[in-house]
C-alpha cells in the first residue's frame, strides 16, 4: 500500500513537472513570438486610428458628448446599436473586466475594407490554444480556414462575413478576406515595422494616452482651410508630407487636438520664414482678460512675412511698391525705417465686448527707431498737433494712416479711418475706437489680462509663448473660420465654447494644437434645422411619432381641419382630413405609434394607420362628442360626453359601449387612468370623485367626497408600493385616499391660488412626488406624505402648466413649465434651471431623441408658429 502511495506521489510529481515544463516552454515560446501590432497595419490606408485602451474607449470615450455627436452622424447609423450596447456593458462597474479590457488596438480603413488589430498582451496566453484547436472551436457560424499556409477564422452573420486571425498576442479582424490575407503575408515577411517614412508615422507608433489618427494631410488641410483662401495661398509655398498625426485627448469639459507634421519651404522666402528665430510673445500679459477674440501673428520678422506674402500676390506687390515710393516722397523716410526697423513681426489683434473695432498690438523692438518713424509721421500731413488727447490719463494720438499700413491691415481685413494710437510698456496700440485703447491699458494696469483670467488660466498656461500663429476664440462671440463647416471635427470642436488654437514651428516640425474648454452654463442648444415652420395654425398638441424607429414625423392638427404628418428626416408632408377637429389622439405603446384617432365637433370619430390607411369600423358617429380630451384605457378610448355626461368606451374595432354611470355635472378634465383604474371628477364645489375598474364597474368606496374645488382631475401617486389618489384644490389643499379608497384626509395645505393640474414625478426614492405650481409662480415639490421637499419662485403667469421629460438623461424627469407666454422653463428635481434664460416656445412640449444622442430633446411650438427643438446637456 505504501508503495502504491509512493508511486502515486511520484507519478503526480512527474506529471506536475511535465505540466510545469510544458507550461514554461509554452510561455517562453509565447514570449519569443510576441509581436508588435504595427507590423500588420496596412501600408496604404485611407485612415489609421490607434486607441490606447479598449476599456477606456467603452467606459469613457464612448460616453462623451463628443461621441454623441459623432455617432449621430447619419452614415454611422449601423454603429449606434453597438455603441449603445458598449455603453451599457459591465465594463464600467467590474474592475476585473476593466483590467482585462485594457487592450490597445488599431483601426485601419483601406479601399478593400477595414482591419482591426488588437494587442492582447498577457491575455493572449489564454487564447492561443484556440489557434491550435483550429476548426474544433464549437461556436455557431464560426469556421476555420487554412489558406496559403495561414490559419484564420470566418464568422458569418447573415450576409456579412468577418475574418479573424490570431498571431500570438495579436488579433486581427477584417471584413475583407483579401485584406486579411495581405496583411498576414506582409506581417510574416517584414518582422520589424514598415518604413519610418515620416515624423507622423513614427509618432503614431509611440505610446500615448490619447486617441491617435494618421490622416491624409492634403485632405486635412483642405478641410481646415476651405473657408480661408488666404491661408491656402500661403501654404502653397510649403511642402507637406502625405500623412499627419492627429491626437485627441478629450473629456466633456476639455479638449485637446494636436496635429503634428513636417514642413519644408519650397521658395527661399518660405525657408527664411521657417528659420526665423522666434522670441517669446509678451502679448499674453497685454491683452485684456475680457477680450472676446485675439489673433497673434508671430510668424517671422515683418520684412520676411511681407516678402512671403508678395510671392503669391503680384497685385499686392505693385501696391507695396507704390507705397514704398509714396512713403519716401511724403514722409522723407524709407519704408524700412518707417515700419520694419522698430517692429519684431509680432502682431496682435483683439476685440473687446460691445465693440466691433479691433485693437492692433505691435511690439516695439527699438524705441529710438520707433520715435524716428513717429517723428517723420508727425512732421508730415499724417499727424497734426491738434490730434492729441489725454483720456483717463492715457495719451492718445490720432493719425491718418500712410498707404503702407493699409496694405498690412488688409491682411487682417481691417479698415481704419483716422485711428488712435498710443505706446505703452513697449507695445504700440492702434484702434479706431479710442475707448478700446483706454480700456486695454486700464486692464493691464489693473492686472486683468488674458493670462490672469481665472476662466482661461489653464488654456493660456499650456500655450507655447513661441507660437507663430495663435487664435483665442469664444464661439459665443464668433465662430473661427476652421469651425464653420459641417464636418464631424468642426461639430465636435463647437461643443467646447472657448479655446486657443496655436501653431508652432521648430526644426521644420509643425505642430498645430487646439485646446478648448467648455462651460456648462447655457449648454442647451437649438438643434440644427430648427426652428422650422408648421404647415398651418397649430390646433392640437404637437406629437413626434415613429412607426418603426427609423421613420419619424411631427403630427398635429392644423387649422382645425386636418391632421398633418410632417416627415422630420425626409421631406414629406401628408395630411388626413379632419373637418371641425376637436381632439387628436395617437395610440402609442412602448414609444411606437400604431394608429391615429381624430375627433370632430360633430361627434364623428375617425381612425387611421400611420400610413393614412383606413381602419375597419371607422369612422364612428357618436351620439354626442367628448367634453374633454379622450384617454387611452388599454387599447380602447375612454370618452366622457359633453351633454349627458356619460363615460363611453370606444373599442379598437369601432364598437361603442356606454358605462352605467351618468354624472350630474360636466367633466372638464381628462380622467386619471393607472393600472386599469379610472378616477373621474365632475368638477364642482364639494363634489365627488368616481372610481371605476377598466370594465366601467364602480369600485368599492366610490364616490369619494371632496372639499373645495379641485384644480383638475385627481392624480394617481405611487406611495409605499401602491397607487394612492391625490386631489389638489384651487386654494392649495391636498387630500389623499389610500389604495382601498380609504381617506387619508387633508395631507398638506400650501398657500397661494392653484390653477395648473399637478404633476406626478418619479422621485429618487421608491415613492413618487408631486409638483404643484401656484398662480403666483411658486413651484413646490411635495412628497407622497405631503411634506414640502423644496420650492422655487418662477416668473410665470397664472396660466402656466406643468409637463415632464427626462431631458438630461439622468433617469429623473425634468419639470417643464409652459403655456404662460413664448417662454419655457426647465428645472431638474433640485429645482435648478437647466436653461436659466428660458427657451423659446409656447405649446405643450413633445419629447423625442431627434439628434441620436440617447437623450430626449424638447420639441415645442412657439407663438410664431415655428417648431423649436432643444437639446440639453448631461447633468
Amino acid at each position: 500500500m505504501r508503495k502504491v502511495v509512493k508511486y502515486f506521489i511520484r507519478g503526480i510529481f512527474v506529471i506536475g513537472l511535465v505540466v510545469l515544463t510544458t507550461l514554461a516552454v509554452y510561455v517562453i515560446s509565447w514570449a519569443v513570438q510576441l509581436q508588435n501590432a504595427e507590423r500588420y497595419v496596412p501600408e496604404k490606408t485611407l485612415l489609421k486610428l490607434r486607441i490606447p485602451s479598449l476599456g477606456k474607449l467603452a467606459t469613457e470615450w464612448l460616453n462623451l458628448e463628443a461621441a454623441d455627436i459623432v455617432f449621430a452622424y447619419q452614415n454611422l447609423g449601423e454603429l449606434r446599436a453597438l455603441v449603445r450596447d458598449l455603453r451599457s456593458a459591465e465594463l464600467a462597474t467590474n474592475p476585473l473586466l476593466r483590467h482585462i479590457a485594457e487592450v490597445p488596438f488599431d483601426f485601419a480603413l483601406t479601399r478593400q475594407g477595414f482591419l482591426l488589430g488588437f494587442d492582447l498582451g498577457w491575455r493572449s496566453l489564454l487564447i492561443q490554444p484556440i489557434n491550435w484547436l483550429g476548426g474544433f472551436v464549437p461556436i455557431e457560424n464560426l469556421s476555420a480556414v487554412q489558406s496559403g499556409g495561414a490559419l484564420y477564422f470566418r464568422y458569418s452573420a447573415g450576409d456579412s462575413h468577418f475574418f479573424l486571425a490570431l498571431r500570438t498576442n495579436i488579433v486581427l479582424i477584417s471584413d475583407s478576406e483579401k485584406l486579411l490575407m495581405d496583411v498576414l503575408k506582409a506581417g510574416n515577411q517584414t518582422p520589424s515595422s514598415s518604413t519610418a517614412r515620416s515624423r507622423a508615422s513614427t509618432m503614431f507608433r509611440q505610446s500615448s494616452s490619447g486617441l491617435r489618427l494618421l490622416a491624409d494631410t492634403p485632405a486635412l488641410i483642405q478641410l481646415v482651410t476651405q473657408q480661408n483662401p488666404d491661408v491656402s495661398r500661403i501654404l502653397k509655398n510649403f511642402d507637406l508630407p502625405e500623412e499627419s498625426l492627429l491626437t485627441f485627448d478629450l473629456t466633456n469639459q476639455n479638449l485637446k487636438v494636436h496635429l503634428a507634421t513636417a514642413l519644408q519651404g519650397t521658395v527661399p522666402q518660405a525657408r527664411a520664414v521657417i528659420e526665423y528665430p522666434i522670441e517669446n510673445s509678451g502679448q499674453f500679459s497685454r491683452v485684456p482678460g475680457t477680450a472676446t477674440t485675439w489673433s497673434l501673428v508671430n510668424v517671422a520678422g515683418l520684412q520676411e512675412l511681407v516678402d512671403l506674402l508678395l510671392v503669391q500676390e503680384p497685385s499686392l506687390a505693385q501696391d507695396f511698391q507704390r507705397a514704398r515710393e509714396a512713403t519716401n516722397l511724403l514722409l522723407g523716410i524709407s519704408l524700412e525705417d518707417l515700419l520694419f526697423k522698430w517692429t519684431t513681426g509680432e502682431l496682435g489683434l483683439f476685440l473687446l465686448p460691445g465693440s466691433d473695432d479691433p485693437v492692433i498690438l505691435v511690439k516695439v523692438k527699438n524705441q529710438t527707431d520707433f520715435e524716428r518713424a513717429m517723428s517723420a509721421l508727425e512732421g508730415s500731413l499724417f499727424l497734426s498737433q491738434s490730434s492729441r488727447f489725454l483720456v483717463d490719463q492715457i495719451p492718445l494720438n490720432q493719425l491718418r494712416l500712410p498707404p503702407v499700413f493699409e496694405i498690412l491691415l488688409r491682411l487682417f481685413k481691417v479698415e481704419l479711418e483716422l485711428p488712435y494710437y498710443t505706446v505703452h510698456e513697449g507695445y504700440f496700440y492702434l484702434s479706431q475706437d479710442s475707448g478700446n485703447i483706454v480700456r486695454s491699458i486700464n486692464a493691464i494696469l489693473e492686472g486683468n489680462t488674458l493670462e490672469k483670467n481665472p476662466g482661461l488660466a489653464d488654456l493660456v498656461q499650456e500655450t507655447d509663448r513661441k507660437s507663430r500663429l495663435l487664435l483665442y476664440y469664444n464661439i459665443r462671440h464668433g465662430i473661427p473660420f476652421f469651425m464653420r463647416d459641417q464636418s464631424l471635427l468642426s461639430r465636435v470642436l463647437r461643443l467646447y465654447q472657448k479655446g486657443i488654437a496655436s501653431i508652432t514651428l521648430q526644426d521644420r516640425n509643425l505642430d498645430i494644437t487646439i485646446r478648448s474648454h467648455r462651460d456648462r452654463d447655457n449648454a442647451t442648444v437649438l438643434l440644427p434645422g430648427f426652428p422650422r415652420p408648421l404647415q398651418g395654425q397649430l390646433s392640437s398638441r404637437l406629437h413626434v411619432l415613429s412607426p418603426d424607429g427609423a421613420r419619424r414625423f411631427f403630427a398635429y392638427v392644423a387649422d382645425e381641419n386636418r391632421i398633418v404628418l410632417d416627415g422630420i428626416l425626409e421631406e414629406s408632408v401628408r395630411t388626413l382630413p379632419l373637418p371641425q377637429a376637436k381632439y387628436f389622439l395617437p395610440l402609442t405603446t412602448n414609444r411606437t405609434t400604431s394608429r391615429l384617432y381624430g375627433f370632430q365637433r360633430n361627434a364623428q370619430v375617425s381612425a387611421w394607420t400611420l400610413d393614412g390607411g383606413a381602419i375597419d369600423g371607422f369612422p364612428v358617429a357618436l351620439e354626442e362628442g367628448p367634453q374633454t380630451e379622450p384617454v387611452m384605457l388599454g387599447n380602447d378610448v375612454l370618452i366622457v360626453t359633453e351633454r349627458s355626461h356619460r363615460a363611453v368606451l370606444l373599442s379598437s374595432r369601432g364598437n361603442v359601449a356606454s358605462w352605467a354611470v351618468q354624472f350630474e355635472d360636466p367633466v372638464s378634465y381628462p380622467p386619471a387612468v393607472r393600472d386599469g383604474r379610472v378616477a373621474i371628477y365632475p368638477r364642482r364645489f364639494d363634489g365627488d370623485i368616481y372610481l371605476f375598474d377598466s370594465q366601467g364597474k364602480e369600485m368599492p368606496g366610490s364616490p369619494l367626497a371632496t372639499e373645495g374645488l379641485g384644480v383638475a382631475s385627481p392624480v394617481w401617486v405611487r406611495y409605499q408600493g401602491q397607487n394612492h389618489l391625490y386631489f389638489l384644490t384651487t386654494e392649495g389643499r391636498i387630500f389623499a385616499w389610500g389604495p382601498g379608497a380609504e381617506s387619508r384626509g387633508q395631507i398638506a395645505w400650501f398657500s397661494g391660488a392653484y390653477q395648473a393640474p399637478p404633476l406626478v414625478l418619479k422621485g429618487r426614492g421608491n415613492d413618487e412626488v408631486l409638483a404643484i405650481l401656484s398662480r403666483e409662480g411658486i413651484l413646490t415639490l411635495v412628497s407622497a406624505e405631503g411634506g414640502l421637499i423644496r420650492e422655487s419662485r418662477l416668473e410665470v403667469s397664472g396660466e402656466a402648466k406643468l409637463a415632464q421629460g427626462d431631458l438630461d438623461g439622468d433617469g429623473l424627469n425634468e419639470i417643464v413649465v409652459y403655456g404662460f407666454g413664448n417662454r419655457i422653463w426647465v428645472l431638474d428635481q433640485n429645482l435648478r434651471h437647466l436653461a436659466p434664460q428660458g427657451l423659446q416656445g409656447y405649446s405643450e412640449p413633445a419629447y423625442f431623441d431627434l439628434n441620436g444622442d440617447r437623450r430626449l430633446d424638447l420639441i415645442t411650438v412657439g407663438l410664431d408658429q415655428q417648431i423649436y427643438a432643444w437639446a440639453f446637456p448631461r447633468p
Partner: protein
Amino acid sequence: MKKALALLTLLAACVSAPTEVSSDRIDDQLLGLEARLDQERWEPDPSRLQTLQAQARSIASSALLNRDQRLRTHFLLADLAKLQQDRQQLAEQHRFLLAVGNQHPQTLIVSSWLDAANALSILQGAPPPANSHPRLQWELGLLLAKANRHAEAVAAYDQALAGLPEIWRQKGRLTRDTSWNLRHTNVTGSDLNRLATIALPTLNQFYLAVREETPNATALRFETQEPLTRARLAEWVLHYVAEKRNNPDLRNRQSRRIRSRPNPASPIPDVSLEAPYFDAVLFCVERDILPLPDGRNFQPDTRVSGSEAVRLVQRVMKDF
C-alpha cells in the same frame, strides 16, 4: 501784426492742449439718460423731454464717442424726437445712425419709424445679431400687434422683456397682455375688435360690441356707463349659454343645488348666495371659464379689460 500772431499762437496752444475726457463717464451719462427716458416715455412731459434732449445733444457733440456710444446717443435723440413727434429731427438722427452703420438695431428701428409702409419688413429682415436686440423685438411686437398678428407679437414682446430694464416689464405689461389675450382671437373688423383696444370698457361698450354676436342679447339690458366687471361678464356668459342651449334651468341650477344642502352657504366667500350673479359666478368657476384669482374669492367687482372680455367672449362662443 504781432498781436495777430500772438492770438494765433494762443489759439494753437488751446487746440493742441490735451483734452481731458473720460470714456467711462460718457457711458455713465448715457446710462443715466437712457434710464430717465425709460421712466419718462410712458407719460411724457414736454419740458422734461427737452431737458433730456439738451443733455443728449451735449454728449453727441463730444469728439471722443466710440461707435457704441455714437449709436446709443443718436438713438436716444431719435427716441426723444419720436416722443416729441419731431419728424425732421428724427430724420436727422437717422442720417447720423446710417453713417455709423445701416444694419445696427438702432438704425433699423429708426428706419422703421420713418418708413411706416415698410416698417414690419425692415424689422423682420434684421440680420443676426441685430434681430435679437430687445428694443428691436419690442418695436416688432408693436407692429405685429397693429397687424393683428397677436401671437407673433407676444413672442416678440416676451423676447424683448427678457432683455429690457425692469420698468418695461411693469409699464409694458398691459401692451403685452393685450396681445396675449387676443392671440387666439380673430377680431378683425368686428365690434369686438374695437372693444379689444379699450383698456377698461363700460357695460354699454361691451353690449354694443357683443350685440351682433349674441342671440337675444337685448335681454341683458347693459346700456349703462357702469364698468364691465368680472361679475357682469359672468352674467353674460351664463345668459349666452342658457340661450344657446335653450336651457333656462341653467340660470338657477347652481343656487338650487347649494340651497338643497342642510346648511346652505356660498362656497365662494365674496359672492353671497343672495347675490344676483351667484349662479353665473358659480357656473363660470366650476366650468373653468373664469378662475378664482386667489384660489378662494372671485373678486366680482374687479374690472375687466377689453382684450380679456374679447378673449372670453370668443372662447365661450366656440365652446358652447
